[in-house]
């Protein structure tokens, strides 16, 4: 039914040329961005750290409950500290492994090389513990504060390593050497080139006033990105773009997630670290917050389809969608209603996430909603996810979001429903006359 919305003369012509000429180019441009190896490795790498951050978050939530005895709270907090304060280590391993796999190299070798490079550029400090002098890495740089360096080092060392391996700039073993042994030798030259480069980075930065790459990146990249990019406006804009891309039939969040990570992930892990250490989190807008409070949009729309729409086709889509929508899966509705290329639904579709995040943000600002500092899987449905992330206030905010989204969709869906009913009637009467 989406095509007949434009039926008649020029409108349909314009629509067709748009679909045939502009759209493929637009899609190609977007796919170039999302298929870019660095962008896709960051997106997949952050997904790969989920087991650690999710478990850490649940320990954090459990440990924060008032009725948990101290004897259990202490190990729980240790668990969540290890999961959150060492996040950069996991990020380095995940990004390097995925990057290596994509470029056809052994992911474990890549993970080791990237990790070694990261430790080379990270300053070792000497601490006095009682009488003893202890050499140690500061946990600070292995957590959220070192995350950008970890990502950069991981991506570029493995890129370099893979280029050297694929160009066969390596020790060539005679054919008589068994393959597994030869493979180990082959990694030596590229591996040492990468590690020596890391040493050079270490030396170069030690000559500057920053002392090390961490200080440099933190001052010139991470802080500016956090303060300029990490605002509520950029969050709302990203929410808008993700849904707008869906209008063009492109899975929006796979495109925007890597940007979201760059702008909002470090704040999330910083919060988690502070809470695990017993302090108060300071960043209300962070990637965990956005994940939980994007709003129960799929569920709200599925309910509108199932309980309010009268067209049998829309009701069927509602039936198909209601269960998957609990877990945030929207594709049946995106293509079935359809929402793709459907101007009637453009407004509620693009605005529902924006409005939801705005509601949650205002709730935080007036002091109602606690700051989110735990990673809740998006597979956990609202209002449970809100409750886990921010207590009963979180659940209340999600219920308010649900109602607002339903109201937002209602007038537009009624129109789509009416169009559908008219069409059904028309088809029905045609059949009778034939």
């Amino acid at each position, binding site marked *: 039914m989406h095509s007949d919305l434009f039926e008649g003369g020029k409108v349909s012509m314009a629509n067709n040329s748009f679909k045939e000429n502009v759209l*493929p180019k637009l*899609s*190609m441009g*977007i*796919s170039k961005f999302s*298929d870019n190896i660095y962008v*896709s490795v960051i997106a*997949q790498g952050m997904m790969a750290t989920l087991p650690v951050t999710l478990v850490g978050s649940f320990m954090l939530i459990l440990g924060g409950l008032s009725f948990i005895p101290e004897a259990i709270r202490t190990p729980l907090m240790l668990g969540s500290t290890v999961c959150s304060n060492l996040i950069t280590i996991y990020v380095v391993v995940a990004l390097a492994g995925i990057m290596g796999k994509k470029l056809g190299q052994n992911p474990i070798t890549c993970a080791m090389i990237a990790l070694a490079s990261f430790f080379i550029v990270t300053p070792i400090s000497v601490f006095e513990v009682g009488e003893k002098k202890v050499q140690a890495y500061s946990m600070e740089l292995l957590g959220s504060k070192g995350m950008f360096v970890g990502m950069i080092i991981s991506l570029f060392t493995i890129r370099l390593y893979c280029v050297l391996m694929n160009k066969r700039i390596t020790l060539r073993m005679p054919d008589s050497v068994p393959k597994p042994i030869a493979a180990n030798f082959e990694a030596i030259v590229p591996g040492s080139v990468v590690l020596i480069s890391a040493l050079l980075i270490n030396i170069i930065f030690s000559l500057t006033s920053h002392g090390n790459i961490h200080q440099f990146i933190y001052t010139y990249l991470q802080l500016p990105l956090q303060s300029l990019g990490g605002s509520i406006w950029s969050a709302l804009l990203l929410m808008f773009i993700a849904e707008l891309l869906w209008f063009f*039939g*492109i*899975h929006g969040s*796979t495109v925007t997630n890597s940007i979201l990570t760059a702008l909002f992930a470090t704040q999330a892990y910083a919060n988690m670290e502070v809470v695990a250490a017993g302090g108060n989190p300071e960043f209300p807008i962070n990637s965990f917050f956005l994940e939980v409070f994007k709003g129960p949009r799929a569920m709200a729309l599925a309910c509108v389809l199932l309980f309010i729409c009268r067209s049998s086709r829309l009701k*069927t*889509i509602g039936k*198909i969608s209601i269960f*998957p929508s609990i877990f945030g*899966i*929207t*594709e*049946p*509705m*995106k*293509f*079935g*209603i*359809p929402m*793709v290329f459907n101007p009637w639904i453009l407004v509620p579709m693009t605005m529902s996430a924006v409005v939801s995040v705005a509601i949650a943000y205002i709730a935080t600002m007036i002091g109602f909603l606690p700051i989110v500092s735990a990673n809740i899987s998006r597979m956990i449905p609202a209002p449970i996810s809100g409750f886990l992330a921010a207590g009963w206030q979180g659940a209340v905010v999600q219920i308010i979001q649900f109602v607002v989204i339903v109201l937002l969709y209602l007038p537009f869906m009624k129109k789509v429903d009416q169009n559908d009913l008219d069409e059904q009637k028309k088809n029905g009467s045609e059949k009778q006359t034939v």
Partner: protein
Amino acid sequence: MKITLACAAGMSTSMLVQKMLEAAKSKNIDVSIEACPVSELSSHLPTDIILLGPQVSYQKDNVTKNYPEYPVIVIDMMDYGMMNGAKVLDNALAAINK
């Protein structure tokens, strides 16, 4: 016979796979059907046909170029939305036998 479906994350596609398997069973067609993210296609080959979800239709040229030995078709938006497993299966079988 094997059919491989690819979408962004492999999640909604696996719902469609269920419907397609049901359709195949009721028609007594012996076929294995798998869903995966486009990025992991290479580890789900060889196959008899690659079906792309409509949300990754813009990847069609890429996929055709990377895997020239397999037929690649994009699943119709409406069939996908209505989870019309039988029709998607028929289209895939028709494309294989062509």
